[in-house]
């Protein structure tokens, strides 16, 4: 199934102007020029260490920028007031932490009720609403480690979405889950995108995830290719991104990649 971004894509939300940056003394991103418009659904492809997560974190203001600038919602990155929901890689989560689905989703309301030790009434209503929207209402009192892969991903999506963010940033949301869960996660993201949420995500899965997205960026410290999968899924681009030889085939209007081992 080929996902389509929502219709009106005119308003620029995030703009990278010749950005080079990274972590302490390390230049992971090199001369990035990128425009992300409101309502887009973008996937980022690239080998490990190519700067995918760094690019996500640069939107969150968590990297050192050596040159260039990131303009978010018309303002300098560090002064931006954009509400961003972030879903980390689930591999980094401590699943033995004693926390329920409800408590985890409530964490997403911390900005709106930061001066109180408890969640305000509006916050509780928002938590209920998002849990219903993501089909988590029956699981609210369950420990997060008791959930299936798809339920865990939906719970973390709930935390990111409960404060009604303008942009949703996901770091490999389909990593380590089975085909059915992957399909379920992608369907939820597509539905959220159609409700107006701008989505920026990283993935390692070229055929099952990236090929279904409306816009894909191939990254290897700098942008190798940027466009629809049909435009940028070429043998040259994959060689430049991964240093690997692949074949591309077309099926049912979509382009796919065959690894040549």
């Amino acid at each position: 199934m080929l996902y389509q971004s929502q219709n009106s894509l005119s308003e620029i939300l995030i703009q990278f102007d010749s950005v080079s940056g990274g972590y302490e003394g390390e230049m992971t991103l090199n001369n990035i020029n990128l425009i992300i418009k409101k309502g887009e659904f973008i996937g980022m492809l690239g080998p490990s260490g190519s700067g995918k997560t760094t690019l996500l974190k640069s939107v969150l203001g968590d990297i050192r920028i050596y040159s260039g600038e990131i303009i978010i919602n018309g303002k300098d990155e560090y002064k931006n007031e954009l509400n961003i929901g972030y879903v980390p890689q689930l591999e980094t989560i401590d699943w033995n932490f004693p926390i329920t689905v409800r408590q985890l989703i409530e964490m997403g309301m911390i900005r709106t009720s930061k001066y109180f030790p408890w969640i305000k009434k509006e916050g509780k209503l928002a938590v209920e609403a998002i849990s219903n929207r993501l089909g988590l209402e029956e699981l609210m009192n369950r420990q997060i480690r008791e959930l299936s892969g798809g339920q865990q991903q939906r719970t973390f999506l709930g935390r990111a979405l409960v404060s009604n963010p303008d942009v949703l940033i996901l770091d490999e949301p389909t990593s380590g889950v089975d085909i059915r869960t992957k399909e379920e996660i992608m369907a939820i993201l597509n539905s959220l995108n159609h409700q107006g949420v701008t989505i920026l995500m990283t993935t390692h899965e070229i055929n099952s995830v990236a090929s279904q997205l409306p816009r894909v960026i191939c990254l290897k410290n700098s942008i190798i290719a940027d466009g629809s999968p049909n435009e940028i899924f070429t043998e040259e681009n994959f060689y430049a991104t991964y240093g690997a030889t692949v074949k591309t085939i077309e099926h049912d209007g979509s382009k796919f990649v065959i690894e040549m081992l």
Partner: protein
Amino acid sequence: MLCALLVGMLCGVIGVYIVMRGMSYIGHGLSHAIFGGAVVSSLMSINFFIGASVWGFISAVLINLATKKKTIGADAAIGIITTASFALGIAIISKFKTFTRGFDAALFGNVLGITNADLIAVIFVTLFAFIIVLVFYKQLLFATFDYDVAKYYGVPVIWIDVIFSMTLAATIVVSMQVLGVTLIAAAVVIPAVVSRLLTNNFLHMLIFSTIIGGFCGLFGIYLSYYLDIASGASVVLFSSLLFIIALLYSTYKGRITRTINIRKNKFHL
């Protein structure tokens, strides 16, 4: 008795955050570091509580900073910073022989040596710690669960670290006289671990750990009096006994739950 009860409760509540952050060794390390600070403040004729607290706070911040560097493990960072500070204390004592507080009491705890000033300090730090835990409950929970992501959701993680380090340093300073440098770590860690074995709810864990810590402080001191042993040792031994009971209980409960689940599954089949 009041002092032991409060110190137990204080260590219990702070211990939950220490254990869940995977920094159980910090209590042990920081108490050794603070010992160095206590000796230095004694040499410089600075008030014990002020000197040791400032030293402890700086050590806690340094440990926190060092653990954020991915190339150094938390255990190595704690080991280097705190042992160096402890060694400094020992070196000063051996050179100037100026440490006015009982050396044995500082190492192993002596509740009988508690002064009014010690008790007032314990009451003050306990109140401070409970206010911090109540006011910053959500922020502390988020930063403990997922430090790296908490900042993206607006949690001021650096300030939370500073406040927590201050509270932890103050906890260890005021607990030193009752529990002793060498035994504080166990008093911080055991109530939290016991409560973790008993519940899967973070808030309940905080409440249980506070109650268990206070209970261990109180009964540990009773034991210390009747058996004529160091107060820190008796508190820790009593806590350890509770840990063994909780471990047996959770293992037994786990087995029962598994059996029930297997029977349920068989029934469904």
